[in-house]
């Protein structure tokens, strides 16, 4: 009798206990997880304050920010090929066109048509690919020249990205004298921000004038991208940068983020410059990781002048296709508290976003809308911006 009673009690106890475990866990999840007490679980941010040195000034020349000329044409191609996640090398865009049509190409078939012409006969290579590719005339590119003045007054030059269309980029390089600078070995290195078509596929144009230039790429390049550097006739060093900080010269450092990017690309590299008596300047190709993430990373990792986030140059990847999403408004609404003094945005920031920045009262540097840049709301092709120096 007593044994029976004990058995029943144990079974009842287990029923209650099983229900209680579920209920208790749900109670904790519901009451604690988003309450004010949950904040006690977050450690205070410890700043590393890595010293990357300082430079006197930085000047950026926008060689080209018009990565493509007609947004509707580009998006039509993306739609036709299957959307934002399709491998960029399969689009049949130049220079990898093989004549089979949209979304049916490959790196191997495309490069086979022009490899023998790279890097010295890029005009001929482009003429070949124009006949085989989808919408070749829509290709533009992103690239800029960064001139760093050291505290001693010595000036050093770097190229950020090499654009897309050989024809357009060669025209831009010649317009700004980049061809001569490369020939004279005045430019120390080519820094590739990421593997996207509009930043990287024009790399033979740089190698045409200096095939030995040291090239920095972020970790995450796909095999096609690595092979393209070789197939473009590059003879210099290729340095793959792992995620994190990579100081280049006093006051200038790159930083690599391991981020996934549309069209099957992974990893992006951007630049920090610490300008004496002014603060930190961010120079980005596309900034897929977000400018606020870049700023927060700087705050945690780097020691910079006056603890001031001073300037921005480049694409901020907010509405590259003139699209919009409420999360972009989160950025527009939040950027003000970072107190940037000079914002030279363009390219994938999007015209709409630049307008919203202007509406919010941010210090946007306007452009001249020349050389096929569309509006003056942001820095266009051929425009310059200085940090610690007037241009």
């Amino acid at each position, binding site marked *: 009798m007593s044994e029976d009673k004990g058995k029943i009690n144990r079974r009842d106890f287990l029923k209650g206990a099983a229900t209680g475990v*579920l209920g208790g866990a749900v109670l904790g999840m519901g009451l604690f997880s988003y309450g004010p007490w949950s904040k006690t679980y977050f450690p205070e941010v410890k700043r590393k304050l890595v010293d990357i040195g300082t430079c006197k000034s930085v000047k950026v020349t926008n060689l080209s920010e018009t990565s493509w000329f007609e947004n509707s044409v580009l998006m039509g191609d993306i739609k036709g090929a299957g959307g934002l996640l399709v491998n960029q090398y399969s689009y049949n865009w130049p220079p990898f066109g093989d004549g089979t049509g949209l979304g049916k190409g490959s790196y191997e078939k495309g490069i086979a048509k022009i490899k023998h012409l790279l890097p010295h006969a890029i005009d001929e290579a482009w003429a070949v690919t124009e006949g085989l590719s989808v919408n070749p005339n829509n290709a533009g590119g992103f690239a800029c020249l960064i001139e760093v003045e050291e505290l001693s007054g010595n000036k050093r030059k770097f190229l950020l990205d090499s654009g897309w269309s050989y024809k357009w980029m060669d025209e831009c390089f010649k317009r700004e004298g980049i061809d001569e600078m490369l020939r004279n070995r005045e430019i120390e290195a080519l820094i590739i921000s990421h593997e996207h078509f509009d930043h990287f596929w024009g790399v033979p144009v740089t190698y045409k004038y200096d095939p030995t230039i040291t090239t920095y790429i972020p970790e995450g390049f796909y095999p096609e991208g690595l092979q393209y550097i070789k197939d473009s006739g590059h003879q210099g060093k290729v340095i793959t940068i792992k995620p994190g900080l990579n100081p280049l010269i006093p006051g200038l450092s790159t930083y690599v983020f391991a981020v996934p990017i549309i069209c099957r690309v992974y990893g992006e590299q951007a630049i920090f410059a610490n300008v004496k008596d002014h603060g930190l300047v961010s120079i980005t190709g596309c900034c897929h990781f977000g400018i606020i993430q870049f700023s927060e990373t700087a705050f945690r990792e780097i020691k910079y002048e006056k603890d001031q986030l001073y300037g921005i140059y480049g694409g901020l990847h907010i509405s590259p296709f003139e699209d919009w999403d409420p999360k972009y408004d989160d950025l527009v609404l939040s950027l003000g508290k970072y107190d940037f003094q000079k914002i030279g945005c363009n390219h994938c920031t999007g015209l709409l976003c630049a307008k919203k920045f202007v509406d919010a009262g941010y210090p946007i540097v306007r452009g001249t809308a020349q050389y096929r840049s569309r509006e003056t709301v942001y820095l266009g092709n051929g425009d310059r911006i200085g940090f610690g120096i007037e241009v």
Partner: protein
Amino acid sequence: MERFGMGYLEERKLVQRWPQPFPAIVSLVLTIAVFYLTWWIFQDPRGWLRMYTPYVGYMYTRWWLIMLIWMVYIFNYWPFKRTWLEKTHPIVKGAVLTAISVLILYGLIKGFFEGLLGNFGIAYFNPERLMKLPRMTEFFALEYASLACLMFAAIASWLSPAWVVACEEVPWQNMDQPGKGISILVVTFFLSVLVFFMTMHSHMGILYYPWQYFTAITPPYWEKFANTVSGNFHVAWIMCCTVVVWIVETIWERFPFKLIKTNWLRRITAFFGIIVLAWAMFFFLYFAQELTWGQAIRGTRLINAPDWRWLHVGEMAVFFLVPAIFITFYCGNWPRRFSLPVNVLIRTVIAIAAAILLYIVYYKTSHDFLGTQKGFMHEAQFPMIPLIWLINIWLVHHWFMDNWPAWKMVPKTAAEISLDHDAEKAKINEIRWTKALGWGLGVGTVCGVAVYFITLSILPWVYKSITIIK
């Protein structure tokens, strides 16, 4: 009187052709093969139709799920007669019913959303209307319209089954089909419209420049609480509601709500109890991300952005649904030998463990296997699409094809049905208030709270110990 499929799922006996685990393994292999083939045909960015743009494929996947729920849970297979359901070969049944679900799906998207709502009510449901906006491209017009339909689907996929599972079809439970189905459809659709306007409309309103102050509430009321103006905040808790409805229906066997004897109280408690459980899950999954990836920072992109974190809450929740459905459909809701609460607890623990494993496997393999973006954080990386696609295939297999070929469907006899009802009553009556149950409940609650805090402590360590993305 013709009953169509009313009670069909309860009154069919699925007889295993071989002892377990072979039927479960065969079904898993078969459905994964169908999943992969259909994924390549319809969704894969490297495949044929490439609907994973991502929103177009996402929208059709979500609405297809709702079509299946409507056909089976709300319309009880109407207009198909009971004899047809019982005597037709599963392949024929599967093909016919799937084809009909796709036809209704297409009609709903093109006819109702794009044609009717998009032309005579709200422009953002119709891509052609959106194309009239300055600088709008065809691609984003289609994506925006798909997003609006998708957000509606998120709500409908919670409310449609909730009316059956929680509210037990009241007040139309005794009505014949199609009257019952139409009534439930109308009321759940009406509620979905209300919830849509109060949770998603503001999100759509601020997609345009300038913000549509005069037609949508902007900035939205949740901005400060959620730390974002994005409607992903709502997508997250609504997804958790959908997942909890199905967990309650499958591995929880409607426990603990079915212990409440009073009908109206049970139904109301179940409906709102599901929401309470979902919000607990919702807050916890957000907090779990903060513990592993650090606090969200408003204005950032990708993994640290609050809107991404909220969306990821919904994505994470779906990982729990997959094993829960598998346990019920293919493992006979194992285990069944203990008391109901103990069975429920064991199944829940198994589902959580399997969900974590699935999460790791998904992110390790989806880039190569499914053609999605590498890594966790891209805005177009939606694990919900393949997971719901797989769930849809399981629903077709279980509801339309009686788990063929590893199982054979045999209608239960009246005696068997009566025995089932008695067993169900006994299962519920077995749980009565006793002193021992009270003690167990108290000790269990303390243990549950302890499990929660232990989980919080080890989560960051566990995450650091496992390399998911190289």
